[in-house]
Every structure is written in structure tokens, then in C-alpha cells.
């Protein structure tokens, strides 16, 4: 990602040894920045969400399409992730610059959702071995302000919560050929249960402390980070270390505990916003892109 050279003494000021729980913008080590979450922002998708975490802006669209189940899992549907790093985010993403980062994020999302309990894939099955729902999750990076993975995972969870999959019926006629009938009512749809969808919490090691939700400057000071995906019940589904520095096994344990704590409260806060939006229903005023 972006190279950010900092004055050495700036780095020491922010993140030197023996520094208490105070970051540059006054946050504690476990505090997230002010986040805005809005769902149903893109009209031609099955579900969408936009998340603004500080200067990081993510848009996720979910499209439900019919496909054939994978050979090894004939009675399940599946998710496909695509990440597009828009050139609007930073000049480094111009042309093919953002491809590497995009693939890395997509692979991380596949890992996070690889756990069987994250999404009930059996509910996405229409006809075993023949038809199933494939959810294409498209992530668009609009602005990079640090802490991409967390923001993306929040947006993906919100978009999946917002996804409405049309109800279908399978009709079999005498010759055995199957027909799929789509319900006439556009509001007749099934919703996904996102209770067990994990969110990614990135813990960056800066100096001797671990911080959550690092800004761009903090990321530049951090040599190593741990990405963990946590469900709302506090279960870890995957873990990944990034950065060229090394992590002490004890630090890893501390970071995991911190991540689980922070992850649980993140899920509670996110669910509260999603439920509030849901309760407003169609009377909700959408801010969208012009607000």
C-alpha cells in the first residue's frame, strides 16, 4: 500500500515506549473511529452497504444469481468475492496498481468465510446438484484511510444482512424435467441469517502497544499486524499475520484476547445500527452518495 515516510521523532512521539492509552486523535488503543453504515444504497443489487470509517470508504454490493453447486458440496450454495480498488482511492491504484491489494483482500475474505458456520450455505440450495444460489459479493474501495480489512468486513456483513434473495419453487413435470418458478411478488424473498458472520479486527503492533483501527499514519509506524476474524459470540474463525516485522507469541495471545473483546462489541454496535435501519423500513431517509 501507500508508502508514508515519517519523521523518526514523529513516530517516537506517537508510539514510543511506556506510552499510556492515548493515541494522536485522543482514542484509546481499543477505540474505533466514528463509523457510518448505510444499507440498500445501490438499487440494482440484491443487497448493498456503504461503510465510512474515518477516511476509509467502502461500498459492497451483493448479487444473487443462479448457478450450479460445486462438485464437492452438491447441496450448498456459495459466495464469490471480488474486490476492486478504485483509482479514486489513492493514485497508486491507477491502472493495475490496485490488483495485488484487491486479490489479497479477496483471498482473506474467502478464508474468513471458509468456516462452515459463518453463512448457512444449505439455505442457498435450490436443487441439489443442479441449482443453487451463488452470492457474488463485490467490494469497491472508494477511499483509503487506513484499516481496510475491518471496514470491508463490516460492509460485507451489513450487505449480507440487507440481501434479499427471491423465493423460488421447483416444479417437476411428468417427464422429470425441472422448472424453476420465481415468485411474482418482488417483496417475497428470503433473508440470510448473519448472526454468525465474522468481522475482521486488525490489531497493529506499534511500539509496545497493540492498537485497533489504525489510521494511515499509524499503519506506517506499525511493523506487524494481526488480522483476526471474530464472530458475534467471540469465536475466532481465522487469523493472519501481515507486515514485515515479527510478533512475540505472548503478544499474539494478548492480541487475540483483545481482538475477541473488541470484535464482540463491534458486532453488538453493528447489529444495533442494522436493526435500527430495519425498524425504520421504507420510511428511512437514505443519505446515499449526495449527503
Amino acid at each position: 500500500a501507500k508508502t508514508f515516510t515519517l519523521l523518526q521523532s514523529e513516530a517516537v512521539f506517537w508510539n514510543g515506549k511506556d506510552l499510556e492509552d492515548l493515541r494522536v486523535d485522543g482514542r484509546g488503543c481499543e477505540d474505533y473511529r466514528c463509523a457510518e453504515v448505510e444499507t440498500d444504497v445501490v438499487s440494482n443489487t440484491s443487497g448493498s452497504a456503504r461503510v465510512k470509517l474515518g477516511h476509509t470508504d467502502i461500498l459492497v454490493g451483493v448479487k444473487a444469481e443462479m448457478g450450479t453447486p460445486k462438485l464437492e458440496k452438491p447441496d450448498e450454495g456459495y459466495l464469490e468475492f471480488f474486490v476492486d480498488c478504485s483509482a479514486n482511492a489513492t493514485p497508486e491504484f491507477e491502472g493495475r496498481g490496485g490488483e495485488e491489494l484487491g486479490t489479497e483482500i479477496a483471498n482473506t475474505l474467502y478464508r474468513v468465510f471458509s468456516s462452515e458456520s459463518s453463512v448457512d450455505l444449505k439455505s442457498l440450495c435450490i436443487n441439489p446438484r443442479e441449482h443453487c444460489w451463488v452470492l457474488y459479493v463485490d467490494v469497491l474501495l472508494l477511499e483509503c484511510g487506513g484499516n481496510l480489512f475491518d471496514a470491508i468486513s463490516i460492509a460485507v456483513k451489513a450487505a449480507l444482512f440487507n440481501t434479499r434473495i427471491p423465493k423460488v419453487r421447483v416444479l417437476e413435470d411428468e417427464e422429470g424435467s425441472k422448472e424453476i418458478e420465481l415468485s411474482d411478488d418482488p417483496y417475497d424473498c428470503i433473508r440470510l441469517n448473519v448472526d454468525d458472520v465474522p468481522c475482521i479486527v486488525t490489531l497493529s503492533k506499534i511500539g509496545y502497544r497493540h492498537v485497533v483501527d489504525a489510521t494511515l499514519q499509524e499503519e506506517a509506524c506499525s511493523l506487524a499486524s494481526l488480522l483476526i476474524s471474530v464472530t458475534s459470540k467471540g469465536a475466532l474463525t481465522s487469523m493472519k499475520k501481515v507486515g514485515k516485522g515479527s510478533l512475540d507469541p505472548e503478544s499474539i495471545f494478548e492480541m487475540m484476547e483483545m481482538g475477541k473483546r473488541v470484535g464482540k462489541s463491534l458486532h453488538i454496535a453493528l447489529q444495533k445500527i442494522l436493526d435500527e435501519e430495519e425498524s425504520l423500513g421504507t420510511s428511512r431517509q437514505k443519505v446515499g452518495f449526495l449527503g
Partner: protein
Amino acid sequence: MRIIFRPRGHGTYVEEEKLIASVAGAVERVNKLVCVRALKTRYNGEVGDIVVGRITEVQQKRWKVETNSRLDSVLLLSSMNLPGGELRRRSAEDELAMRDYLQEGDLISAEVQSVFSDGAVSLHTRSLKYGKLGQGVLVQVSPSLVKRQKTHFHDLPCGASVILGNNGFIWIYPTPEQKDEEAGGFTTNLEPVPLSDREVISRLRNCIVALVTQNLMLFDTSILYCYEASLSHQIKDILKPEVMEEIVLETRQRLLDLEG
């Protein structure tokens, strides 16, 4: 007003026989010249401005400094103070030792010496108050929000000092205890700064961000009033939209009371 013929400058276009500026900002009129000073703009150097810049390149006999302008600014080796304040001709050894003085990523405070014909700015640090900056926090704002004042180095009574660069780079740092150190020096103090000072600096940084978001001009009084208005909130809450509006409204009120 019907326009028959009017010579037009950069950044304007004609629509429906009216001349329209393509940038939004404050209007300045000098006789028949109407200028719009844009709100969001790159820094345009003027001689005598104080700037805070970051070194991007070390070249032969000069450094390239990033000052949020259209072209990188230049700091010539001959315009830089030597440690100890010596006055001598720069030798070949000085040239080779340039990286020991300033490296890529270092922050400096400097004054604009001259402006080249293409708009690039030439800086100098020929005074002990300029030079490499030590521990502190940098905030980048639009240059149009920094008010032009007699001095841009302020020691705020709340316990921190601030340099308001004309180019929009604001440097907040703990007030040094001894005032007559060779401030243009190159040895940076890396001792840990006490928590109380760091809290003041964090609060100031958030206040400046709040003022900028609400488009208020930045000068020592406005920053100080905003700081005082924010004391009733926790530092991290200052960046919440509701709190920001409240604090800046109070600051605006106090500034109006001051004037009238």
C-alpha cells in the same frame, strides 16, 4: 450585465453570455480585477511566508521539500543553517554530509526566500527559529484556511506550541523548556513526552480538525477558543459531528464577541 468583450483569465468559462469562475471561494476586487481565492487549493508561495514541509528527496546541493504546492519546493544547501550557526562557504564535504542533516521524511520549518518563474518555491532556514522539527504532530489543512499574521509561531497558554504554516501544514509540539537552545539544530530530542502534554497536543489536533471541517479560519485565537470550548468533552469525542458543530459554534460566538 451584458458583456460584449472581456478579456478573461484562467479558471473562467462563459455560459449564456456570462463569465463564470470555475472555482468557489472568497472574492477579492482590486480596481477592475476580480479574483476568486479558492477554498480548496494548492499552496501558492509568496516571499516571506512561513512553511512547514517534508523532505522528499536529497539531491546534489539541495533538498526537495513537499509543501502541498503544485511543484516540490527547493531548499538549497547554501540556504540551510549549519549546526552551531557557522557562516562559511559550503564545501564538498558538506555536500556529502547532506543526509546527516536532513533525510527523506524529515519535517522542517522554513521561510520562503524566492519564487521561481514556474511557481516553484525556494526555501531558506537562515534563522535559529527554523530548522528540523522534533517530536510532535502534523495536521494538513487547506492553505486558504490559515490566516496571515505577523507571526506564525505560537506558544499557546494551554501548554503546547504550534507552527501555522502558510502552506496548510500545522505542526503542534510540546513547548520546549529552554528557549535559547540552538533551535535550528539537528539533534532531535527523543525523550518521551509526558502524558499531560500529549493530551494537550491530541486535544489541539482534534480542535484544529474540527475548525477545518467547519471552515473556520485558523489563527492562534481561534485555536485557543476552540480548545477551551472543547474542555468539557473527552478528547476522542471532539471528532463526533455533533460535538464538532457545538464546539465550533461556541468558538465562532466568542470570536464575534471579541470583534464587536
